[in-house]
C-alpha cells in the first residue's frame, strides 16, 4: 500500500477529511521550505503538496504566479525541489508528499531519470497540471514502475469517460478542480461541487480531493463535508507573501492559516451543517 493510500485509509477509519496545504518550493527563499513543511504537519496537514516553480504557470492565478517568480529568483530547479523532499524525509517518514507543477521541467530531466530521483527522494505522488491523460501514458508508466502515484486533475468539464480514464491511469487520489478558472479565484460553489462529486464517485475507486477557491475556515469546512480531501494553496501562499520580507517568521506564523481550517473541518457541528 502506498503512503498516500495508507494515509487515506487511516483518515477514513478516523472519520476525518484530509487537509492538504500547497506551498511553492523555495518561496520566498529556499531555506524556508523544509521548516515550513514540518510546521504545516504540526498545524494539521495530512499530506503536503509542493509546487515546482515554473516560468510560465498557465493554470495559476496571480498569487501562485508571484510565488513562482520569487522562487525562480533563487534558481530553484526540479533537482533543488527533490533535495528539499530528501531533507524533509530525514525527520518525517510518514507524511505523503505530492509534487505539483508543469510538465516541461520533468520533460527536460527525462521521465525515467525523474521517476528514479523522485522515488529515492521520498516523493509519493506527482501531479502535472498540463498533462492530461491522453498524453500521460509514458510518464505514468515511469512513475508507477517506481511506486509513485500519478495524480490527475478532474474538472467541471470532465465527462464520465474521462473520469474513468483517469481512474485507470491514476493513483493516490483524484484532484477535482472546483470551478472553471485559475488557482486563487473566488468562484467556489459548494453545492455545484457536491453534485459533481456525486457523479465522479460513480466512476472512480480513488478518494476525491477538492482544490481551487478554498480560502478560509468556513469554505474548508463546507468542502470537507463532501470531499475526501481539501487542498489549500493561494490562501496559504498569500500569507507567505505577506511575510516575504521576514522569511524567518514564516514557519512559525504562516501555518496558522492551516490550523484554523483544520479546527473548522474537525468541528462536528460545522461539518454536519454544511
Amino acid at each position, binding site marked *: 500500500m502506498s503512503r498516500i493510500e495508507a494515509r487515506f485509509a487511516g483518515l477514513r477509519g478516523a472519520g476525518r477529511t484530509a487537509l492538504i496545504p500547497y506551498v511553492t518550493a523555495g518561496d520566498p527563499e529556499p531555506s524556508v521550505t523544509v521548516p515550513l513543511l514540518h510546521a504545516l504537519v504540526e498545524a494539521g496537514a495530512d499530506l503536503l503538496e509542493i509546487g515546482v516553480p*515554473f*516560468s*510560465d*504557470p*498557465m*493554470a495559476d*492565478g*496571480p498569487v501562485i*504566479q508571484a510565488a513562482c*517568480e520569487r522562487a*525562480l529568483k533563487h*534558481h530553484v*530547479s*526540479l*533537482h533543488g525541489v527533490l533535495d528539499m523532499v530528501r531533507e524533509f524525509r530525514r525527520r518525517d517518514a510518514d507524511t505523503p508528499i505530492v509534487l505539483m507543477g*508543469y*510538465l*516541461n*521541467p*520533468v*520533460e*527536460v*530531466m527525462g521521465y525515467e531519470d525523474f521517476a528514479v530521483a523522485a522515488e529515492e527522494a521520498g516523493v509519493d505522488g506527482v501531479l502535472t*497540471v*498540463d*498533462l*492530461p491523460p*491522453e*498524453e500521460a501514458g509514458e510518464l505514468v508508466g515511469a512513475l508507477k514502475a517506481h511506486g509513485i502515484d500519478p495524480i*490527475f*486533475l*478532474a*474538472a*467541471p*468539464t*470532465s*465527462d464520465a469517460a*474521462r473520469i474513468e480514464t483517469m481512474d485507470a491511469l491514476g493513483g493516490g487520489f483524484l484532484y477535482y*478542480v472546483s470551478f*472553471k*478558472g*485559475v488557482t486563487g*479565484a473566488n468562484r467556489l460553489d459548494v453545492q455545484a461541487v457536491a453534485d459533481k462529486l456525486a457523479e465522479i464517485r460513480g466512476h472512480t475507486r480513488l478518494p476525491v480531493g477538492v482544490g481551487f477557491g478554498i480560502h478560509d475556515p468556513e469554505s474548508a469546512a463546507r468542502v470537507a463535508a463532501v470531499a475526501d480531501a481539501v487542498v489549500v494553496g493561494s490562501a496559504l501562499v498569500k500569507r507567505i507573501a505577506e511575510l516575504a520580507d521576514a522569511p524567518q517568521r514564516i514557519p512559525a506564523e504562516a501555518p496558522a492559516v492551516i490550523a484554523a481550517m483544520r479546527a473548522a473541518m474537525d468541528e462536528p457541528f460545522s461539518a454536519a451543517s454544511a
Partner: protein
Amino acid sequence: MATQADELEALMAQPDARGHFGPYGGRFVAETLMGPLEELRQAWEQFRADPEFLAELDEDLARFVGRPSPLYPARRWSDKLGGARVWLKREDLNHTGAHKVNNTVGQALLARRMGKKRVIAETGAGQHGVATATVAARLGMECVVYMGAEDIRRQAINVYRMRLLGAEVVSVESGSKTLKDALNEAMRDWVTNVDDTFYIIGTVAGPHPYPAMVRDFQTVIGREARAQILAQAGQRPDALIACVGGGSNAIGLFHPFLSDEAVAIYGVEGGGEGIESGRHAAPLCAGSPGVLHGNRTYLMEDADGQIIETHSVSAGLDYPGVGPEHAWLKDIGRVQYVAVTDEQALAAFHDLTRTEGIMPALESSHALAYAMQLAPTMKADQHIVVNLSGRGDKDIHTVAALEGIKV
C-alpha cells in the same frame, strides 16, 4: 515498403487525430480545457467541409481582406542581387497590413457559428491584436486583447488602434511582460470564461486543433502563390523563403508545396545579436524540445526546463517557441531552418525599401535578408518566392531609434 510517393503523401496528412506532427504538437493543457478543445476540433472539422462556411470565408477574404494578394516580380532587386529571380508574395497589401488577418477572419467566422459572443487574443507587436480587434468590430463581438506591459510600452500606436476598434487591451505584468506572458494570460481568461468565449490564437502553435486550424486558414497564401508563379513565370519556384516566429506565414506559404520535392524551402528565424551570443529568438536553430503553451515543440529553455527570454529586433519573432509542424519539418529535413541577425534584417529592410519602393515589416525583412544570401548562389533562370508577410509602417519608430533619429 513505403514508396517515395507515400512519404510525400504523408507530409500532407499531418497531424494525426490527436494533433501530433511526429513527436510534436498534441494537447498539453489543464483538464478544464480538454472538453472545450474537443468541441472546437469538432466544429472546425464540420465547417471546413461546409460549402456555405467556405463561401462566406472566401467572400470575406476577397472583399474585406483584399485577396488574392499579388505575386510581385522584384526586378530591380533581383538584378542587383544577381542570380535567381525573386518574387514577393504581397501579404503586406492585405487589410490591416499583414497575413494575420487571413486567420482572424476565419476564426471569427467560426466563433460566430459556434455561438460565441466574446473573442480574446494574445499579441506581441500588436499585429494579431489589431487583426482580431478589426474582425471583432466588424462582427459586433466583444474583444479583449492581452499584451505584455513591455510590448504596450514599445507599441503604443497599435495599442491605440485596437482601442479605436473597440477592443479592451489588458496589460500583462507577469513574467517577462512580453508575448509568452500575454499567451499565458489569454489562456487564463479562456479557462475562466470558456462557456461564452472563443480564443483566437494568432499563430500555428498551442494545443490541437490550433496548429492545424490556423495553418488551414493561412494556406491560402501558398495556394495563390502556386497558381500565380505558374501563370507568371511559367514554372514552379525553385525555392521558398519565409520568416518564422510562431510560424503561421511560413506554414501558409510552405504547406501547398511540401510534397513538391523539387522546391527547396527555407524558414528564417530571428538571430538577434547572433546565435553564438545566446541573445536570439531561434528555437529551431539553437533550442531543444519541450512542452509549452499546449504543445510539444522546440523551445528556448535552460537546463532546468525554465523558458528563457528571447531577443529580436522584430517583436513578431520574439517568441521562445515555434509551431509544432515546423519542429517536425526540421527533424525530417523537409525544410531548412536558418537564422539571420538583427543587423542583416535591417540591411534588407533598407535595401528593399530603396530598390523597390516597398517597405517590409522587420519580421519579413528576415526572409528578405536570407534571399540576399541565397539568390546570388542560384542561376538566372531559377525563381525564389519570398513571403512579404507584412508592411513596415509599424516599425518606422524602431528603425529610426536604432539609427539615432527622433521621429
